[in-house]
């Protein structure tokens, strides 16, 4: 009886640990999860490659109309154009189960993106970051610490006259040596189409 109870307890703890690891989410102020993925040209890209730089991650899926809207509006391209020479790197990550380097290359071409799309079709990196939507944005400071996660801006419908770009604001604050005033917001967009 007590043996069965012990086995049940151990099993329950194991289930809880697995559940905890699946749900592990990055925490603001803690080191961002490390990753190595291939970009749309097949080149290996690691977060560690950008030590000393600020890294912006955008969860991306070209089939999501919200991503496509921002791509057409040049929301992310403008970030690259504004902040690239200030030591900021933007990486798109595609955790769509069906994505390939080839499909990412085509999408990068189609939308004339000036940043790479990394292939996370297994979804491991997306799950490590708790990425839920496309787009879902993360900002990692020069020391590899996560300082922002959430929406790109406060305009889910793309129809506001005055838009607050949360990522740009976080970058401005970081570059001015200030803490990020809004470290977390609710992301919006399509759900990430993870492999099951």
């Amino acid at each position: 009886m007590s043996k069965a109870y012990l086995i049940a307890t151990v099993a329950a703890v194991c289930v809880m640990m697995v559940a905890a690891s699946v749900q592990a989410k990055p925490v603001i102020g803690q080191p961002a999860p490390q990753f190595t993925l291939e970009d749309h040209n097949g080149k290996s890209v690691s977060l560690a490659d950008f030590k000393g730089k600020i890294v912006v991650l955008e969860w991306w899926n070209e089939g999501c109309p919200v991503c496509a809207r921002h791509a057409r509006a040049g929301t992310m391209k403008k970030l690259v154009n504004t902040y690239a020479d200030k030591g900021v790197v933007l990486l798109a990550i595609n955790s769509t189960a069906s994505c390939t380097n080839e499909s990412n290359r085509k999408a990068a071409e189609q939308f004339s993106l000036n940043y790479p799309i990394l292939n996370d079709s297994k979804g491991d990196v997306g799950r490590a970051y708790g990425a839920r939507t496309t787009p879902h944005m993360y900002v990692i400071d020069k020391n590899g610490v996560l300082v922002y996660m959430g929406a790109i801006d406060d305009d889910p419908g793309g129809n506001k006259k005055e838009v607050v770009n949360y990522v740009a604001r976080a970058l401005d604050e970081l570059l001015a040596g200030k803490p990020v005033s809004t470290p977390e917001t609710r992301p919006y967009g399509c759900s990430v189409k993870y492999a099951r």
Partner: protein
Amino acid sequence: MNTTHGRKERHNNLGPNNMRFFALTCGPRTAYSTAAMRYWVEITTVCWIVASLAVWAAEAAPAGEHPATARLLADVSTAAPGRPFRVGVLFTMAPSWHIYWKNPGDSGMPTMIRFAGPAGTEFSSLHWPAPWAFSDGEMTTYGYEGSVLLWATATLPQNTPVGGTVEISAECQWLVCRRECLSGGAKLALSLRVGDVPVPADADVFARWAGSLPVAAASPECPVELSVTRQAAGDRQRGASFRIAGRWKGRAGRDVAACPDSGEAFKVEGIRVERLADGFIILLNAEVFKGKEQDGSELPVVVSFTDGAGVRRGVNVALPMRPGH
């Protein structure tokens, strides 16, 4: 290219012939195909050109492939100046597709409607029937499958000339998803006569959806007794855990969901619903985002369920975020 839609509109009885509308929906059918993406840009461009050129059409063109259609309705065919009436958009989705509640949940986008009328017309905020929760095990979203009416109360200015007509319009935007998502939009309009006495229309549609509007927990028609317990905040600085216990007053409901109206201020996680013989227990953790503390004293939650008669219903609950609040 034919891109304007409203698949079912040809068969719709919109009431009096003086009601006109025009609908526009855009988007790719297949969200994953790169070939489709190329068309997407073209289709979208064409859509916007059509949108900018189109005058109010008497009837929407057939629906094509977009999985959601929108139809503008009023609960009067003749409105009286200064007398409130209801105006709503009835969304109809293809099987297995859904649009989103005001809080879409872990992903998605709120459905948006902007009503407009003659200068001085007042519109209330949008009324949202009790939503469904959709969960894939990893993410939970809130919205509507099948169909839903989202409506507002409109009031024409007192000085609106009697005997003429007025035009009410609704600009709609939505994201419609099953596994993939498509964005859609519609510019709808209808004409109403203006008279001294209102003449009702489409009363059944409005009555049906008014029956799904969440009610106050204290109201007599609330079919469930609720009690809220605020539990230890744990290590969360701006958070709290809540337990909502519900007991059915009469016939038990099913498909109970806790739908937090989180707005921009709250992060809500770990929602669990346990079914009991005579009710349910809901557990959830809520946290106010840093910088949003002033907006976050109470978290509104709609506890939604399907009642014994098969009607989706809801109860409004406010969760106190501060101890002793």
